[in-house]
Protein backbone atom coordinates (compact mmCIF):
# COMPACT_ATOMS: atom_id res chain seq x y z
CA UNK A 1 0.00 0.00 0.00
CA UNK A 2 1.73 3.15 -1.07
CA UNK A 3 -0.05 6.25 -0.01
CA UNK A 4 1.29 9.68 -0.83
CA UNK A 5 2.96 10.86 2.36
CA UNK A 6 2.55 14.51 1.41
CA UNK A 7 -1.19 13.99 1.09
CA UNK A 8 -1.33 12.38 4.54
CA UNK A 9 0.19 15.50 6.07
CA UNK A 10 -1.81 17.74 3.75
CA UNK A 11 1.19 19.58 2.34
CA UNK A 12 2.51 20.05 -1.19
CA UNK A 13 5.61 18.32 -2.45
CA UNK A 14 7.42 21.65 -2.44
CA UNK A 15 6.55 22.40 1.19
CA UNK A 16 9.47 23.58 3.32
CA UNK A 17 10.75 21.46 6.20
CA UNK A 18 9.20 24.02 8.50
CA UNK A 19 5.77 23.70 6.83
CA UNK A 20 5.97 19.94 7.18
CA UNK A 21 6.81 20.20 10.87
CA UNK A 22 3.92 22.60 11.44
CA UNK A 23 1.48 20.39 9.55
CA UNK A 24 2.58 17.37 11.58
CA UNK A 25 2.22 19.20 14.87
CA UNK A 26 -1.25 20.43 14.00
CA UNK A 27 -2.44 16.95 13.05
CA UNK A 28 -0.67 15.25 15.95
CA UNK A 29 -2.40 17.56 18.42
CA UNK A 30 -5.73 16.52 16.98
CA UNK A 31 -5.19 12.81 17.23
CA UNK A 32 -2.43 11.93 19.69
CA UNK A 33 -3.68 8.62 21.13
CA UNK A 34 -2.80 9.44 24.72
CA UNK A 35 -4.95 12.54 24.47
CA UNK A 36 -7.80 10.48 22.99
CA UNK A 37 -7.79 7.23 24.94
CA UNK A 38 -10.05 4.56 23.51
CA UNK A 39 -10.46 6.36 20.19
CA UNK A 40 -9.32 3.81 17.64
CA UNK A 41 -9.75 6.18 14.71
CA UNK A 42 -7.49 8.78 16.29
CA UNK A 43 -4.93 6.11 16.99
CA UNK A 44 -4.93 4.87 13.39
CA UNK A 45 -4.68 8.40 12.08
CA UNK A 46 -1.82 9.18 14.45
CA UNK A 47 0.07 6.11 13.26
CA UNK A 48 -0.24 7.22 9.65
CA UNK A 49 0.83 10.80 10.21
CA UNK A 50 3.72 9.71 12.45
CA UNK A 51 4.90 7.27 9.81
CA UNK A 52 4.65 10.02 7.18
CA UNK A 53 6.47 12.51 9.39
CA UNK A 54 9.11 9.95 10.20
CA UNK A 55 10.15 10.11 6.55
CA UNK A 56 9.22 13.64 5.47
CA UNK A 57 10.46 15.22 8.70
CA UNK A 58 13.94 13.88 8.09
CA UNK A 59 15.57 15.78 5.20
CA UNK A 60 17.66 12.76 4.12
CA UNK A 61 14.79 10.31 4.20
CA UNK A 62 12.58 12.85 2.47
CA UNK A 63 15.05 13.18 -0.41
CA UNK A 64 15.23 9.42 -0.72
CA UNK A 65 11.45 9.19 -0.66
CA UNK A 66 11.21 11.86 -3.37
CA UNK A 67 13.64 9.89 -5.48
CA UNK A 68 11.56 6.77 -4.94
CA UNK A 69 14.29 4.98 -3.02
CA UNK A 70 12.13 4.30 -0.02
CA UNK A 71 8.44 3.69 -0.04
CA UNK A 72 5.77 5.11 2.16
CA UNK A 73 5.74 2.32 4.68
CA UNK A 74 7.37 4.29 7.43
CA UNK A 75 8.66 2.28 10.31
CA UNK A 76 6.50 3.19 13.16
CA UNK A 77 8.58 3.50 16.29
CA UNK A 78 6.75 1.34 18.76
CA UNK A 79 6.89 2.47 22.31
CA UNK A 80 4.76 2.16 25.35
CA UNK A 81 1.76 4.40 25.13
CA UNK A 82 0.85 6.21 28.31
CA UNK A 83 -2.81 5.35 27.96
CA UNK A 84 -1.98 1.67 28.20
CA UNK A 85 -0.56 2.14 31.69
CA UNK A 86 -2.91 4.87 32.81
CA UNK A 87 -5.85 2.77 31.70
CA UNK A 88 -4.49 -0.48 33.03
CA UNK A 89 -6.31 -2.31 35.70
CA UNK A 90 -9.90 -3.16 35.07
CA UNK A 91 -9.22 -6.42 33.31
CA UNK A 92 -6.52 -7.48 35.68
CA UNK A 93 -8.08 -7.14 39.06
CA UNK A 94 -8.86 -3.80 40.55
CA UNK A 95 -5.80 -3.75 42.75
CA UNK A 96 -2.91 -1.66 41.55
CA UNK A 97 -4.09 0.47 38.77
CA UNK A 98 -1.66 2.89 37.31
CA UNK A 99 -3.89 5.87 36.68
CA UNK A 100 -4.56 6.32 40.39
CA UNK A 101 -1.04 7.44 41.08
CA UNK A 102 -1.55 10.58 39.06
CA UNK A 103 -5.26 10.88 39.61
CA UNK A 104 -5.06 13.88 41.88
CA UNK A 105 -2.44 15.65 39.84
CA UNK A 106 -2.59 19.43 40.06
CA UNK A 107 -5.32 19.31 42.66
CA UNK A 108 -7.93 18.64 40.02
CA UNK A 109 -10.42 16.44 41.79
CA UNK A 110 -12.14 13.58 40.12
CA UNK A 111 -15.25 15.63 39.53
CA UNK A 112 -17.52 12.72 38.86
CA UNK A 113 -19.82 14.57 36.54
CA UNK A 114 -19.67 12.17 33.63
CA UNK A 115 -23.13 11.20 32.49
CA UNK A 116 -23.81 7.92 30.78
CA UNK A 117 -23.91 9.59 27.40
CA UNK A 118 -20.26 10.67 27.76
CA UNK A 119 -19.05 7.24 28.59
CA UNK A 120 -21.31 5.23 26.37
CA UNK A 121 -18.51 4.16 24.06
CA UNK A 122 -16.46 2.95 26.97
CA UNK A 123 -19.41 0.94 28.24
CA UNK A 124 -19.94 -0.49 24.80
CA UNK A 125 -16.29 -1.59 24.85
CA UNK A 126 -16.58 -3.10 28.27
CA UNK A 127 -19.72 -5.04 27.68
CA UNK A 128 -18.00 -6.81 24.85
CA UNK A 129 -20.26 -5.35 22.20
CA UNK A 130 -19.34 -4.68 18.61
CA UNK A 131 -18.93 -1.06 19.48
CA UNK A 132 -22.13 0.25 17.97
CA UNK A 133 -23.67 2.09 20.87
CA UNK A 134 -26.53 0.43 22.67
CA UNK A 135 -27.03 -2.00 19.84
CA UNK A 136 -23.69 -3.57 20.50
CA UNK A 137 -24.31 -4.36 24.10
CA UNK A 138 -25.33 -7.91 23.54
CA UNK A 139 -22.53 -9.98 24.92
CA UNK A 140 -22.19 -8.62 28.39
CA UNK A 141 -19.84 -10.56 30.57
CA UNK A 142 -17.27 -11.07 27.87
CA UNK A 143 -14.63 -10.61 30.51
CA UNK A 144 -14.65 -12.65 33.63
CA UNK A 145 -17.20 -15.14 32.41
CA UNK A 146 -16.52 -18.81 32.80
CA UNK A 147 -13.47 -20.06 34.58
CA UNK A 148 -11.30 -17.18 35.62
CA UNK A 149 -10.68 -14.06 33.60
CA UNK A 150 -8.36 -13.69 30.66
CA UNK A 151 -6.13 -10.68 31.01
CA UNK A 152 -4.42 -8.68 28.32
CA UNK A 153 -1.08 -7.01 28.57
CA UNK A 154 1.23 -5.25 26.22
CA UNK A 155 4.99 -5.27 26.24
CA UNK A 156 7.88 -4.12 24.15
CA UNK A 157 10.83 -6.29 23.23
CA UNK A 158 14.09 -5.30 21.59
CA UNK A 159 14.69 -6.02 17.92
CA UNK A 160 17.34 -8.67 18.54
CA UNK A 161 15.36 -10.30 21.34
CA UNK A 162 12.44 -10.70 18.96
CA UNK A 163 14.71 -11.91 16.17
CA UNK A 164 16.80 -14.43 18.10
CA UNK A 165 14.33 -15.30 20.86
CA UNK A 166 14.74 -14.58 24.54
CA UNK A 167 13.41 -15.38 27.96
CA UNK A 168 12.09 -12.39 29.80
CA UNK A 169 10.92 -11.89 33.33
CA UNK A 170 8.70 -8.85 33.28
CA UNK A 171 6.67 -6.97 35.79
CA UNK A 172 3.34 -5.99 34.33
CA UNK A 173 1.64 -2.67 35.15
CA UNK A 174 -0.60 -4.38 37.70
CA UNK A 175 2.43 -5.69 39.58
CA UNK A 176 2.19 -9.28 38.40
CA UNK A 177 5.46 -10.87 37.35
CA UNK A 178 5.44 -13.11 34.30
CA UNK A 179 8.10 -15.32 32.80
CA UNK A 180 7.74 -14.92 29.11
CA UNK A 181 9.58 -16.90 26.53
CA UNK A 182 9.85 -14.84 23.37
CA UNK A 183 10.04 -17.21 20.40
CA UNK A 184 12.65 -16.43 17.76
CA UNK A 185 11.20 -14.54 14.83
CA UNK A 186 8.42 -12.88 16.78
CA UNK A 187 6.74 -10.18 14.74
CA UNK A 188 5.61 -6.75 15.80
CA UNK A 189 1.98 -6.84 16.92
CA UNK A 190 1.91 -10.58 17.57
CA UNK A 191 0.11 -11.80 20.68
CA UNK A 192 1.53 -14.47 22.98
CA UNK A 193 -0.83 -16.61 25.02
CA UNK A 194 0.32 -17.63 28.49
CA UNK A 195 -1.97 -20.39 29.60
CA UNK A 196 -3.26 -20.18 33.15
CA UNK A 197 -1.52 -16.85 33.81
CA UNK A 198 -4.74 -14.86 33.84
CA UNK A 199 -7.00 -14.06 36.71
CA UNK A 200 -8.20 -16.73 39.03
CA UNK A 201 -11.92 -17.24 39.43
CA UNK A 202 -12.57 -16.82 43.15
CA UNK A 203 -15.34 -19.44 43.10
CA UNK A 204 -13.92 -22.22 40.97
CA UNK A 205 -10.22 -21.53 41.42
CA UNK A 206 -9.76 -21.87 37.67
CA UNK A 207 -7.33 -19.44 36.06
CA UNK A 208 -7.82 -17.66 32.76
CA UNK A 209 -5.06 -16.97 30.26
CA UNK A 210 -2.82 -13.98 29.85
CA UNK A 211 -2.51 -12.54 26.38
CA UNK A 212 0.52 -10.40 25.81
CA UNK A 213 0.60 -8.22 22.74
CA UNK A 214 4.17 -7.56 21.81
CA UNK A 215 5.60 -4.60 19.98
CA UNK A 216 9.05 -5.03 18.60
CA UNK A 217 11.37 -2.06 18.83
CA UNK A 218 13.12 -0.87 15.74
CA UNK A 219 16.87 -1.19 15.63
CA UNK A 220 19.43 1.47 14.73
CA UNK A 221 21.14 -0.86 12.23
CA UNK A 222 19.06 -3.91 11.46
CA UNK A 223 15.79 -4.04 9.60
CA UNK A 224 13.87 -7.17 8.76
CA UNK A 225 11.51 -8.47 6.18
CA UNK A 226 9.95 -11.73 7.28
CA UNK A 227 12.86 -13.90 8.36
CA UNK A 228 15.48 -12.00 6.38
CA UNK A 229 17.55 -9.37 8.10
CA UNK A 230 19.12 -6.37 6.39
CA UNK A 231 22.04 -4.33 7.54
CA UNK A 232 24.32 -1.73 6.00
CA UNK A 233 27.98 -2.04 6.84
CA UNK A 234 30.65 0.57 6.16
CA UNK A 235 33.99 -0.33 4.58
CA UNK A 236 37.05 1.75 3.78
CA UNK A 237 38.00 2.43 0.15
CA UNK A 238 40.95 0.08 0.65
CA UNK A 239 38.75 -2.77 1.89
CA UNK A 240 36.33 -2.16 -0.97
CA UNK A 241 39.01 -2.06 -3.65
CA UNK A 242 41.36 -4.71 -2.36
CA UNK A 243 38.89 -7.03 -0.74
CA UNK A 244 38.88 -7.86 2.96
CA UNK A 245 37.57 -10.05 5.70
CA UNK A 246 35.48 -8.01 8.07
CA UNK A 247 33.38 -8.71 11.10
CA UNK A 248 29.67 -7.89 10.77
CA UNK A 249 26.90 -8.06 13.36
CA UNK A 250 24.03 -10.52 13.02
CA UNK A 251 21.08 -10.93 15.35
CA UNK A 252 22.91 -13.80 17.06
CA UNK A 253 26.37 -12.22 17.24
CA UNK A 254 29.24 -11.17 15.04
CA UNK A 255 30.30 -13.26 12.06
CA UNK A 256 33.07 -12.78 9.58
CA UNK A 257 32.31 -11.79 6.01
CA UNK A 258 34.50 -11.71 2.92
CA UNK A 259 34.28 -8.48 0.99
CA UNK A 260 35.21 -9.37 -2.59
CA UNK A 261 37.80 -7.26 -4.39
CA UNK A 262 36.34 -4.22 -6.13
CA UNK A 263 33.08 -4.11 -4.15
CA UNK A 264 31.27 -0.84 -4.67
CA UNK A 265 28.86 1.04 -2.42
CA UNK A 266 25.47 -0.64 -2.64
CA UNK A 267 26.85 -4.14 -3.25
CA UNK A 268 24.72 -6.60 -1.39
CA UNK A 269 26.23 -9.75 0.10
CA UNK A 270 24.27 -12.65 1.47
CA UNK A 271 25.00 -14.47 4.70
CA UNK A 272 23.04 -17.61 4.13
CA UNK A 273 21.03 -18.80 7.11
CA UNK A 274 22.24 -15.94 9.31
CA UNK A 275 18.84 -14.28 9.40
CA UNK A 276 16.04 -15.29 11.70
CA UNK A 277 15.71 -18.94 12.65
CA UNK A 278 12.13 -19.59 13.62
CA UNK A 279 11.60 -22.96 15.26
CA UNK A 280 10.74 -25.52 12.61
CA UNK A 281 11.25 -23.16 9.71
CA UNK A 282 14.09 -22.63 7.31
CA UNK A 283 16.43 -19.93 8.59
CA UNK A 284 16.26 -16.59 6.84
CA UNK A 285 19.31 -14.88 5.38
CA UNK A 286 21.09 -11.75 6.37
CA UNK A 287 21.80 -9.31 3.58
CA UNK A 288 24.69 -6.94 4.05
CA UNK A 289 24.78 -3.79 1.93
CA UNK A 290 28.22 -2.26 1.68
CA UNK A 291 28.87 1.41 1.93
CA UNK A 292 32.28 2.80 1.08
CA UNK A 293 33.21 5.50 3.56
CA UNK A 294 36.03 8.03 3.15
CA UNK A 295 38.12 8.96 6.16
CA UNK A 296 36.66 11.83 8.21
CA UNK A 297 39.43 14.19 7.19
CA UNK A 298 41.11 12.95 4.02
CA UNK A 299 44.64 14.30 3.92
CA UNK A 300 46.32 15.91 0.97
CA UNK A 301 48.17 12.78 -0.04
CA UNK A 302 44.94 10.83 -0.51
CA UNK A 303 43.21 13.68 -2.33
CA UNK A 304 46.17 14.20 -4.68
CA UNK A 305 46.57 10.53 -5.34
CA UNK A 306 42.91 10.02 -6.26
CA UNK A 307 42.54 13.19 -8.33
CA UNK A 308 45.73 12.37 -10.24
CA UNK A 309 44.48 8.87 -10.86
CA UNK A 310 41.10 10.16 -12.07
CA UNK A 311 42.79 12.51 -14.56
CA UNK A 312 44.41 9.50 -16.15
CA UNK A 313 41.41 7.20 -15.85
CA UNK A 314 38.32 9.36 -16.16
CA UNK A 315 34.95 7.70 -15.50
CA UNK A 316 31.45 9.00 -15.03
CA UNK A 317 29.50 7.46 -12.15
CA UNK A 318 26.44 9.57 -13.10
CA UNK A 319 26.19 8.16 -16.60
CA UNK A 320 22.55 7.58 -17.45
CA UNK A 321 21.21 9.68 -14.63
CA UNK A 322 22.15 13.04 -16.05
CA UNK A 323 19.69 15.53 -17.47
CA UNK A 324 16.86 14.23 -15.30
CA UNK A 325 16.60 17.10 -12.91
Amino acid at each position, binding site marked *: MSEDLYAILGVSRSASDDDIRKAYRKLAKECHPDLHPGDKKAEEKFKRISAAYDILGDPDKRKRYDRGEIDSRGEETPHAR*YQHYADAGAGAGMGGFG*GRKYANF*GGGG*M*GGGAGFED*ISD*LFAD*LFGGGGAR*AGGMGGMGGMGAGGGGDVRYRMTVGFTEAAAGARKRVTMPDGKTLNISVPAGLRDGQTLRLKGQGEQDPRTGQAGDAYVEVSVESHPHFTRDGDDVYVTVSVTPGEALGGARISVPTVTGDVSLTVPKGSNTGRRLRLKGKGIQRPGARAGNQYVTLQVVLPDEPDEALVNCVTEWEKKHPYNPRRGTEGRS
Partner: protein
Amino acid sequence: MITAVQLVERVHGLSMEQLEVWVAADWVRPEHHQGAWYFTELDVARASLIREIRDDLAVDEETVPVILSLLDQLYAARHETRALAEAINQQPESVRDSVRACLQRLYEEE
Protein backbone atom coordinates in the same frame (compact mmCIF):
# COMPACT_ATOMS: atom_id res chain seq x y z
CA MET B 1 11.47 -0.42 39.10
CA ILE B 2 14.23 1.36 37.25
CA THR B 3 16.64 4.14 38.12
CA ALA B 4 16.68 7.69 36.82
CA VAL B 5 19.62 6.87 34.55
CA GLN B 6 17.73 3.95 33.04
CA LEU B 7 14.65 6.08 32.53
CA VAL B 8 16.63 8.77 30.72
CA GLU B 9 18.13 6.09 28.49
CA ARG B 10 14.71 4.71 27.65
CA VAL B 11 13.04 8.01 26.78
CA HIS B 12 14.44 9.22 23.51
CA GLY B 13 15.66 12.81 23.70
CA LEU B 14 15.28 13.23 27.45
CA SER B 15 18.10 14.64 29.57
CA MET B 16 18.73 14.13 33.26
CA GLU B 17 18.38 17.89 33.86
CA GLN B 18 14.96 17.84 32.25
CA LEU B 19 13.86 14.87 34.30
CA GLU B 20 14.94 16.63 37.46
CA VAL B 21 12.83 19.65 36.53
CA TRP B 22 9.82 17.44 35.84
CA VAL B 23 10.15 15.60 39.13
CA ALA B 24 10.53 18.93 40.97
CA ALA B 25 7.35 20.13 39.25
CA ASP B 26 5.63 16.91 40.31
CA TRP B 27 4.91 15.96 36.69
CA VAL B 28 6.63 12.62 37.21
CA ARG B 29 6.56 10.96 40.62
CA PRO B 30 9.35 8.53 41.44
CA GLU B 31 9.52 6.48 44.59
CA HIS B 32 12.32 7.42 46.94
CA HIS B 33 14.56 4.79 48.47
CA GLN B 34 17.70 5.78 50.33
CA GLY B 35 18.05 9.03 48.51
CA ALA B 36 17.63 7.56 45.03
CA TRP B 37 14.68 7.76 42.65
CA TYR B 38 12.95 4.69 41.29
CA PHE B 39 10.48 4.70 38.43
CA THR B 40 7.85 2.32 37.13
CA GLU B 41 6.78 1.58 33.55
CA LEU B 42 3.93 4.03 34.09
CA ASP B 43 6.49 6.77 34.80
CA VAL B 44 8.52 5.86 31.71
CA ALA B 45 5.40 6.13 29.55
CA ARG B 46 4.45 9.38 31.26
CA ALA B 47 7.90 10.90 30.70
CA SER B 48 7.70 9.89 27.02
CA LEU B 49 4.31 11.50 26.78
CA ILE B 50 5.51 14.75 28.38
CA ARG B 51 8.47 14.81 26.01
CA GLU B 52 6.15 14.29 23.04
CA ILE B 53 3.77 17.00 24.18
CA ARG B 54 6.62 19.50 24.62
CA ASP B 55 8.88 18.64 21.71
CA ASP B 56 6.84 16.94 19.01
CA LEU B 57 3.66 18.90 19.56
CA ALA B 58 5.50 22.11 20.51
CA VAL B 59 3.26 22.81 23.50
CA ASP B 60 4.86 25.50 25.65
CA GLU B 61 6.12 24.76 29.12
CA GLU B 62 3.33 26.54 30.94
CA THR B 63 0.60 24.67 29.11
CA VAL B 64 2.02 21.22 29.86
CA PRO B 65 0.64 21.02 33.44
CA VAL B 66 -2.80 22.06 32.17
CA ILE B 67 -2.80 19.18 29.71
CA LEU B 68 -1.47 16.74 32.28
CA SER B 69 -4.11 17.76 34.78
CA LEU B 70 -6.91 17.30 32.24
CA LEU B 71 -5.46 13.98 31.13
CA ASP B 72 -5.20 12.74 34.68
CA GLN B 73 -8.81 13.61 35.27
CA LEU B 74 -9.79 11.88 32.05
CA TYR B 75 -7.96 8.68 32.99
CA ALA B 76 -9.32 8.80 36.52
CA ALA B 77 -12.85 9.12 35.14
CA ARG B 78 -12.22 6.25 32.73
CA HIS B 79 -10.99 4.23 35.62
CA GLU B 80 -14.04 4.82 37.72
CA THR B 81 -16.23 3.99 34.77
CA ARG B 82 -14.33 0.75 34.25
CA ALA B 83 -14.70 -0.15 37.92
CA LEU B 84 -18.42 0.50 37.69
CA ALA B 85 -18.71 -1.60 34.55
CA GLU B 86 -16.71 -4.38 36.15
CA ALA B 87 -18.98 -4.26 39.21
CA ILE B 88 -21.98 -4.57 36.92
CA ASN B 89 -20.32 -7.45 35.12
CA GLN B 90 -20.09 -9.35 38.36
CA GLN B 91 -23.82 -9.05 39.04
CA PRO B 92 -26.26 -11.84 38.27
CA GLU B 93 -27.58 -12.01 34.73
CA SER B 94 -30.93 -10.47 35.73
CA VAL B 95 -29.25 -7.36 37.14
CA ARG B 96 -27.04 -7.01 34.09
CA ASP B 97 -30.15 -7.28 31.91
CA SER B 98 -31.85 -4.44 33.78
CA VAL B 99 -28.77 -2.24 33.54
CA ARG B 100 -28.48 -2.98 29.86
CA ALA B 101 -32.15 -2.14 29.29
CA CYS B 102 -31.79 1.02 31.30
CA LEU B 103 -28.74 2.14 29.35
CA GLN B 104 -30.50 1.44 26.11
CA ARG B 105 -33.39 3.66 27.19
CA LEU B 106 -31.01 6.46 28.12
CA TYR B 107 -29.30 6.28 24.74
CA GLU B 108 -32.60 6.35 22.94
CA GLU B 109 -33.72 9.43 24.83
CA GLU B 110 -30.79 11.43 23.52
